[in-house]
């Protein structure tokens, strides 16, 4: 057995940290001393004499002082303007009175000073002082808050999250003025130390869920948690489920709306998406568009999207089942057309379908990687040339092209990228089942999918709510979208602390007019 085990693990030794080197900082840290040189020496040692660690010594009020900073993460102009200039021009001994910086901390622990140093703070040591200062001087490189390209909305706000946690939090706070909006900070990843913030409304989000998320976040013991997408797999319930259980969105308005329903958002430095938890199936099918258009239009679009879910999963399977087993269900006039087209094809329908589906997936994948002008020509080559030639050669039948094209379009209707993937993956097992057992196979496969949906949970809340468990009151904002004044209660599935969100506003208004 040992031999097999060794073979499977590729002869790798088990990972153990070599003795003598500990990964974590000493628990109690180390106090700064009055000796500048000793302090700086400690900092240099702690950072292994990295070359971007720079120092600048000077005299302030006739006493030696020293600035230490990491040149790679600091804004030199800021150090110059906000620290050096005032210090050199003043005879005042207390830096707190001189330095015009909003974020300036007095510290005694060198270890925590080093943590801040790594984030772009500048450390100020002074002669014979056991405390030192950390002043925020980080350089901020950020793009503008553009509309995310994968979540465009026709109507509604056109800003989106960027890779800066600070800006993202700002965008969320701008949307929700409530004092109940709380931000809990985390530092994730043993090595990456990525800043993360859990955002929720204190009077809405279920404390149990917040607690659960907090525990899951703290339980992660991994070196690399660079961005939200990495964290997502650590904290989601079932990683091998085809359905995503955490919504990723780059739209501040979507995050704000979900926070107002009692969900919890996780924002991370370096991630231009927020993770929304707990997310039910229908959350993935809601888009700001249906909230920003009028109720009838919004409901229509939403029903269309849910219909697209069924189309994507079942349409190719249905066609395969019909062509392979149940020719009888096609009306007579159509039958001759389809039969005539299919008869020339030497392959079983399932191969035809797989071939065509894979071609479309290839085209899609290729066009993402290419620059826009090239990807357009790929679309033309792929869509028109291959599509036409494939039929003329006799590899694929015309009806199959229609079915596959419709399915592809339907799969892109989902407003969430993740869900779009899962739906596209799911149609393959259904197609295979249909090719073996026809309608019965589709029934089995759909049953399995829906059983899975009923069993799935997202942070302890039922994933397929409000359909299973059945709660028809919540359908008004899940399957359709009724006018806002009809949405008196919040959806029940994220277990908000308060259900009422609207109190007969319309009737009050009418009363005033009379």
């Amino acid at each position: 057995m040992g031999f097999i085990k060794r073979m499977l693990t590729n002869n790798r030794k088990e990972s153990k940290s070599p003795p003598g080197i500990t990964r974590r900082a000493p628990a109690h840290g180390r106090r700064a001393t009055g000796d500048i040189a000793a302090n700086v020496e400690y900092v240099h040692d702690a950072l292994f004499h990295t070359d971007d660690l720079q120092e600048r010594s000077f005299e302030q009020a006739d006493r030696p002082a020293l600035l230490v900073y990491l040149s790679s993460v600091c804004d030199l102009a800021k150090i110059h303007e906000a620290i050096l200039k005032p210090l050199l021009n003043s005879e005042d001994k207390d830096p707190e009175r001189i330095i015009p910086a909003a974020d300036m901390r007095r510290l005694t622990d060198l270890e925590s000073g080093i943590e801040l140093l790594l984030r772009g703070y500048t450390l100020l040591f002074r002669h014979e002082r056991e405390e030192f200062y950390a002043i925020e001087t980080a350089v901020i490189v950020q793009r503008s808050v553009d509309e995310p390209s994968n979540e465009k909305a026709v109507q509604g706000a056109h800003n989106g999250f960027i890779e800066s946690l600070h800006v993202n939090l700002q965008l969320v706070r701008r949307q929700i003025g409530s004092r109940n909006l709380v931000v809990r900070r985390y530092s994730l990843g043993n090595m990456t130390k990525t800043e993360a913030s859990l955002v929720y409304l204190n009077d809405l989000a279920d404390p149990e869920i917040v607690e659960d998320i907090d525990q899951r976040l703290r339980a992660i013991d991994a070196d690399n948690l660079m961005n939200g997408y990495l964290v997502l797999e650590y904290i989601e319930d079932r990683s091998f489920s085809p359905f995503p259980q955490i919504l990723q969105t780059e739209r501040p308005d979507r995050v704000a709306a979900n926070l107002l329903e009692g969900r919890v958002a996780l924002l991370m430095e370096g991630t231009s998406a927020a993770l929304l938890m707990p997310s039910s199936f229908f959350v993935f099918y809601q888009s700001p568009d249906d909230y920003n258009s009028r109720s009838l239009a919004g409901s229509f679009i939403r029903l269309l999207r849910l219909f697209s879910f069924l189309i994507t999963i079942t349409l190719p399977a249905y066609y395969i089942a019909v062509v392979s087993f149940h020719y009888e269900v096609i009306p007579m006039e159509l039958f001759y057309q389809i039969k005539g087209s299919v008869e020339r094809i030497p392959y079983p329908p399932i191969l035809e379908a797989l071939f065509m589906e894979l071609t479309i997936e290839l085209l899609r994948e290729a066009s993402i990687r290419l620059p826009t002008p090239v990807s357009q020509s790929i679309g033309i080559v792929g869509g028109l040339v291959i599509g036409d030639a494939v039929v003329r050669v006799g590899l694929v039948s015309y009806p199959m092209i229609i079915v596959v094209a419709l399915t592809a379009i339907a799969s892109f209707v989902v407003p969430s990228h993740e869900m779009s993937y899962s739906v596209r993956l799911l149609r393959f097992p259904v197609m295979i089942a249909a090719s073996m057992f026809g309608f019965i196979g589709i029934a089995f496969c759909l049953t399995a999918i829906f059983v899975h949906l009923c069993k799935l949970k997202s942070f302890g809340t039922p994933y397929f709510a409000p359909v299973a468990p059945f709660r028809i009151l919540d359908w008004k904002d899940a399957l359709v979208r009724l006018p806002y004044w009809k949405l008196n209660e919040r959806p029940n599935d994220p277990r908000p602390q308060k259900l009422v969100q609207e109190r007969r506003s319309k009737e009050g208004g009418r009363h005033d007019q009379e």
Partner: protein
Amino acid sequence: MIKNKERITPGQLMILIVQTQIGVGVLFLPSTVEAKAYNDAWIAVILGGGASAALLLAIWALGRRFPGMVFFDFLPLLMGKPLGKIVHTIYAVMFIAECGVILAQFGDVVRDWIFSSTPSWMILGLMLAVSVYMAVENLRFITRFFVLTFILIFVLILIALYAYREAEWLYALPIGNAGFLNILKGSALSMNSFYGFEILLFAFPFVQGSSRSVLKAGMYANLFSTVVYAFLVFTCVLVFTPLELRLIPQPILYMVKALSFTVFERADLYFLAIWTVVVLTTVMAYLYMAAKSVSSLFGKSRHAGTVPVVAAMIWILAIYPHDQDMIDWMQRIVSALTTLTLVVLPTLLLVISYIRKIERKEQVQKG
């Protein structure tokens, strides 16, 4: 002992019972009952529904006396340990056998109607695999799925409603033509389709609310099933001549097959696909009950590990019969078993409980 997480509402209980009751019977009931009760088959079905309501009442009365306990928890209290074990085993065998027969009948229909050459062990295996995936969960999850698929029963009814275009109302007349005795015989035969209410034995302690609401839910469920069955049988009586009905085994399918919609033909294939899901829910429920009874027979509280084992037994049982005679033979055995376990035993147990005044005194806290 009953966790809050496993509780279901009375409404869910109703649908749970309906989904367990309505299954293969949809296709087989009309011709079996018609064979005895002729054009009064629908009256026989209603009588059968009444009888099953009475049995449901007995099970409810039994469950009410032992709040917070599942049937197999209080069985030894009533019958003593050794006898209780024997009865428990009989129940376990009954659930497995009943599930096997349901599957065998399903396999038969699929072979006759769609896949004449696909081996039925394959289809039944797939069906059981899907059911296992559901049955390992607790009642709450199962009920959620049942509620989700409840709508399919209405779709079946809608499709059948379309057949009224070809109905001949005179076929139902004269009412009472078959004679009282024949109607009774017919309703005895129809009982097979009403079995499934025994899920109350397992579900009772999980239901939130008073025992009155449980009874109400059970009665509504039984009423619903009775109406659906009676409607389907009545439709068949109206559409087919008595002579035709005797010849064809699944009259509903023949009836639906003849329907022609402009968008699609051969509604029977769609009907069968939907019916498959309806049967699946029944199989899931029976698998759950069988696994529960087997696991508690061996003193285990969790049933998830038992489900695949029980499913394998059911599978072997279901693919064993290869001709109609064997299926009939199996059905006779199973109906003897079900009569014993669902008609005789609950009544007997209830009587014992009342005479010897055995019941559970303390009330379980509602939560």
